[in-house]
Structure formats: C-alpha cells, structure tokens
C-alpha cells in the first residue's frame, strides 16, 4: 500500500491482526447494512472471547448470528437482540454477557468514542435500570446520566462505494450505525460494493472521510431481507 491507498485484496488481509479477546464494533441495523463478509472472515479465523458492539446480533445462521455458533462472542453490547434463538439460549444459559443499551445511547457512545469525547450526559435511561449506578447530574431542572464512550480494537463497516483513499458513501438506510462504528475503531475496515478512482466521488457527498478508514475491500453481498413487506398492487 502506498500513500493513502487503503485497498486490500483479500478478506484475510482485511481482518489481519484480529485476536482473541478484542472488541469489535459492527455497523448495521437488523440485517441491513451489515459487513457480512468481514463477519464471515471472523468466523473463519475462529477468534473467540470477543466483545461485540452492534445494534443487533444478526439472526440464526446469518450476520453476527454465525459467530454464536462456535461461541466466539463472550460479551455483546446491543439495543435489541430479539431475532435469534441461539442467542436467546446462550443468554439464558449465561454463556454470553449481554449489556443492553438504549439505541440512541449506543449510537452516541460510538460517535463520542470516535470524536475524542470520553463520556456524555443523556436523559435517556434516567430512573430506569439502565441508569442504576451511573452518575446523575441536573441541568436546567432535568436529570441526566453519565454514559461512557465506546471504542473498538476493530470496526467492521459496510459501505456502498468508496475510493482508494477510503472515502465512503453508504446506500439508503444501510447507513445506520456504519459511519459511527467507522470513527471508533483502532483499525477500521470497510467493505463496499464498488471501489472507484479518487476524484470520482463528489467530495461533498462523502459520509465517512478516509481519515477514519484503514482498509477498504470490495466484496459481493447477499443482502438478506429480514421482513419482506410489499403493498398490494
């Protein structure tokens, strides 16, 4: 790799350096905009004892759900984990530590992690089990709890288009948590549908500037749909 060229050409290279016990931030909402090939590479490598930070944990047999099959995840920080029977069993058996986090707080924890903000106050969760044990402060008569930022050893991200320099554009609602995860990884890996020459993307349309990105790889995607709903025509 030379200069700002972040391209890698194999998924093995893309996930080089991932080790047991690391924290991995993953983009995606449900199965929409998940880095499916990077997840598959983590499975192939059989690294374990991972802490995964992601809004959801995939479904049985797809997305992050495949990392449950060989018990590679020991801890997950997520807002909603309801679509996965294997996950439920591991949670009930105490094999996996689940830290449920409100969705907006989770997004902001990643954003803060990438933006050099160690913690922030939010009204979300005050007076609920989520606020227990957390510092409380009052501003203008309202109560807020202190929530700490999250950073990852790796961030795995799914984009639509990127250039060689790692400038990324997401497609439609596949954006979701991806640009936030991208900022908060010590090593940020982005897989995209198409890599284009620098200069081809409009600089004003970039969602994730290349400064956040360490590796870019072009892949092909199944893009499984979780709940296909159509209108009567």
């Amino acid at each position, binding site marked *: 790799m030379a200069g700002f060229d972040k391209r890698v050409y194999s998924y093995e290279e893309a996930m080089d350096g991932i080790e047991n016990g690391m924290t991995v931030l993953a983009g995606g909402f449900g199965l929409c905009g998940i880095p499916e090939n990077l997840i598959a590479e983590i499975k192939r490598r059989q690294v374990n004892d991972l802490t995964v930070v992601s809004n959801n944990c995939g479904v049985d047999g797809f997305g992050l759900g495949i990392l449950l099959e060989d018990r590679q995840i020991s801890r997950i920080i997520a807002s909603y984990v309801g679509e996965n029977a294997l996950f439920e069993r591991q949670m009930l058996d105490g094999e996996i530590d689940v830290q449920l986090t409100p969705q907006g707080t989770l997004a902001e924890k*990643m954003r803060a992690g990438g933006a050099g903000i160690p913690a922030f106050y939010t009204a979300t969760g*005050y007076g609920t089990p989520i606020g227990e044990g957390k510092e409380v402060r009052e501003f203008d008569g309202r109560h807020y709890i202190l929530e700490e930022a999250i950073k990852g050893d790796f961030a795995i991200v799914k984009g639509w288009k990127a250039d060689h320099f790692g400038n990324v554009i997401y497609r439609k609602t596949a954006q979701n948590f991806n640009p*936030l995860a991208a900022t908060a990884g010590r090593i940020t890996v982005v897989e995209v549908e198409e890599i284009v020459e620098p200069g081809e993307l409009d600089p004003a349309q970039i969602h994730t500037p290349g400064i956040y990105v360490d590796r870019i790889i072009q892949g092909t995607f199944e893009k499984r749909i979780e709940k296909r709903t159509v209108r009567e025509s």
Partner: protein
Amino acid sequence: MALTREQMAQRVARELEDGFYVNLGIGIPTLVANYIPEGMDVMLQSENGLLGMGQFPAEDEVDPDMINAGKQTVTARAGAAIFSSAESFAMIRGGHVDLTVLGAFEVDVEGNIASWMIPGKLIKGMGGAMDLVAGADNIIVTMTHASKDGESKLLEQCSLPLTGAGCIKRVLTDLAYLEIDNGAFILKERAPGVSVEEIKEKTAGKLVVPDDVPEMTF
C-alpha cells in the same frame, strides 16, 4: 364497546397536525399512518435513520437497503431524508419530533412508563424506546386498559422496570383517553358505550373523573 385496534389508531390520528414530524412505534401506533386526515401532511420518522417513510414497496421496488425500524422493507416518500443512527437520535433526543406514539405494558400516575422488560421472561432489549420517551414532550401511549386477566395497566406505581420516568402525559386505551397530571389519571373521553364505572373499576391508579366525560365518536 372497547375500541378496536383500528379505532385506537383513528383516535390517535386526531392528535396529528399539519406539518408534524411523527415517530410511530410498532403495533397499534404503526396503524396511525393509515388515518392521516386528508389534506394534512405528516412526516414519519423511523429511528434507523429515515425521515419521510413512505408506503411498503411494490414487489419490484423491494430494496434490502431500504427498511424501517421494524426491519420491514419500505420506501421513502418525496422529500425524505436518510441519515445515520446518531443523527436520528439527535433529532429524537433533541426534542425535534413533534409527536411520538408508542405502546406500553404499564403506565402510572407519575407519568412513568414500563414497556421493555418483564423480569423472568425473555429480555429482548429496549431498542430506541428509552431515547424516544426521554426526548419527546408530546407522547401518546397506546395500550389495552387491562390485561386479559383483567389486571389494570394504569397503576399507582409501575411494577415492571421502567422505560422512562415522569415522561408520559397522555394515554389512549381501548376504553378511554386519559391525561396524567398532578399524580392522577384524568378521564377525558370514553369509548362508545363504555361506562365511567367500568373505567373506574379497571383503573388501579388514582382517577379523576370530571363532570362531563364525552364519548368518542367514529
């Protein structure tokens, strides 16, 4: 007669105003979108990062990159915007959404809401519900007035773990429309044919009954 799910949605829709940005939760709240009054323009926010949710796609428009917060495939209407989850919750937490409609297991006279967790049962997570109730001034909770066993869901104090504290001011049940003020439920309207007596009987928390409680009309 208790209201049907559709009637509950219809009643909530009367709280919409032209130019409102609205977040609708899963279940009955979602049905509100079917009753937006003619000539009124309302923009629906979906917390996965879509402002201006459109209808479900036609068969040939289905796009895996285009979903709503319920993970259903959707379309974007004209004038929609798409953004990150942090941006989405900035607009929710920042109080920019004009009306939030969501379901609950219980509410109480202090405006507390419990909607995400039943201890001993499977815990799936709160998703965006805690952010929504913490960020919105204008929230309508929709739920049945009592459980199938007849247990009231309008309580003096919530028994389940809270989603938010002191944040609910309006509740529409299948029996009544109530406001929460000063440590009590205020009975504002009743479902057609439902007596004040029945509502009193099924409301465990303190209930204030004004002299005149009009029946809803549909």
